[in-house]
């Protein structure tokens, strides 16, 4: 059993690289996902992942399948959409979700257009679904750097960020950190999506960010535990997904995200914080 788990990684360098990359992703993306979930912005992660596509595509056009070029392009596109959407939200009657939706849809269409006019459909598949089994050094370093940066920034803005989720008007009333916090957080969202799309693709990367976070909601009563559990769930899903894809010859990205999905389903049923089964089970209420 132990051998079955360890051997693929001992034997093949590409499996080791994939594992390291996924673990690094699992350290940065799920904590960001926790805050997205708690701010009821889960679907925003999805929208942003589409928004980075044209940037990555332009990077691809300019430099081919180059990690730095595509990442930089994706990052710029993501930040541009965040800034534009934020500007429209502040200056018109549109709410944040609507203005974001408008920009990311345009961005997505633009991205698909660029890739299909100039590249082949294989390239498009790479961008959409990632190549976790072909991570080179540059990609690994990029993912690790982003994970490190994410944890440092989260630690720095942790308190205002928690307060902004829990009681935004109170944060507004006691400090001016509200908008810088919000913006830094959105930068983290974009960074982690960019970091993840090499491995899992622009569509699947949202999965490693959100599914563990949503899973953790069923187990944790406060937010710091929730973050720890989300990271653990992501690490577990990465390992299980990689092994499944190795033994059953499945595409790796979807295998990892599906593993996280199974974790979610199980937690939804048996999670101690409002899991379905606990609600169905008739338990006698307490004295107080």
């Amino acid at each position, binding site marked *: 059993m132990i051998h079955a788990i360890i051997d693929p990684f001992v034997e093949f360098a590409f499996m080791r690289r994939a594992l390291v990359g996924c673990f690094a992703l699992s350290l940065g993306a799920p904590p960001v996902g926790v805050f997205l979930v708690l701010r009821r912005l889960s679907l925003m992660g999805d929208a942003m992942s589409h928004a980075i596509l044209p940037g990555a595509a332009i990077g691809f056009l300019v430099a081919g399948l180059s990690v730095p070029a595509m990442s930089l392009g994706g990052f710029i596109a993501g930040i541009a959409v965040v800034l534009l959407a934020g500007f429209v939200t502040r200056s018109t009657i549109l709410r944040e979700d609507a203005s974001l939706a408008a920009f990311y849809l345009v961005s997505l269409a633009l991205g698909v257009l660029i890739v299909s006019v100039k590249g082949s459909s294989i390239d498009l598949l790479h961008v959409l679904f990632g190549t976790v089994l072909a991570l080179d050094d540059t990609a690994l370093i990029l993912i690790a750097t982003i994970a490190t940066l994410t944890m440092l920034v989260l630690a720095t803005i942790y308190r205002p960020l928690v307060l902004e*989720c829990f009681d935004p008007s*109170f944060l507004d009333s006691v400090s001016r950190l509200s908008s810088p916090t919000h913006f830094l957080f959105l930068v983290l969202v974009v960074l982690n999506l960019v970091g993840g799309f090499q491995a899992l693709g622009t569509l699947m990367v949202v999965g490693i960010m959100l599914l563990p976070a949503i899973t953790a909601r069923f187990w944790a*009563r406060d937010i710091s535990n929730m973050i720890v559990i989300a990271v653990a769930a992501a690490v577990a899903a990465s390992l299980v997904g990689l092994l499944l894809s190795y033994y059953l010859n499945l595409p790796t990205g979807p295998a990892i995200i599906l593993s996280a999905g199974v974790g979610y389903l199980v937690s939804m049923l048996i999670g101690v914080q409002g899991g379905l089964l606990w609600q169905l089970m008739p338990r006698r209420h307490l004295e107080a």
Partner: protein
Amino acid sequence: MTKPATISFHDLTLGYNRHPAVHHITGEVARGDLLALVGPNGAGKSTLLKGIVGQLKPLSGSFSLDGLKRSDIAYLPQQIDIDRTFPITVFDAVAMGLWHDIGAWRGLDGERSQAVQEALRALGLQDLGERSVGALSGGQFQRVLFARLLLQDATIILLDEPFRAVDTKTVEDLLRIIARWHKEGRTVIAALHDLDQVRAHFPKTLLIAREVVAWGPTKPVLTPKNLAEARQLTEAWDEHAEVCARDEAASERISV
């Protein structure tokens, strides 16, 4: 014995999209006042409080805060957009009141945790510290907000309908906290609807109905005549309202 003013309004008009919600407010709130803000729905009570905390820019006129900073004012809004399902414990939620002291980065040392415990105790929440806020009743949650206000240690405390949807026992306890603030010399302004409560606990009252109807010691302010006038004055927002006549008169005076 006139105490120094802590909030002075100078012909202050506040509103939304040029439509005033309250206009031409002039007067002073003395330091240490325990002031009830009374008026019908739509009288502009919340607007006035929002103006004081700086969430609304004056349409005209101004007010001064006697050199106080924004952080010297604690404000409990009527519409709280607090996420009650958020996974945070009662202790942590209350501890946020120490923001002025610990900011975004300093930790809770022993002394400060002690202060949080005391605030919890003052509101009868000492046994609920480790509960998550989602498990609280409406009244308990209002106590949490008051405990947080206690820790904010503010010079001016603004409460917008603080007793909405809480039972009499809770109201009594919260009133005790307000009395304590009054005794400590803090300035408290509370928007309220229950006139008996105002008469019993608030020495001063500002009766507004989109403008000042009466302002001063509670008893002579809350007369049937003043209250009837307040009801009459509160008219609906008029999409096609004329430019305020008083402003026109004023500008004519200037141009003459």
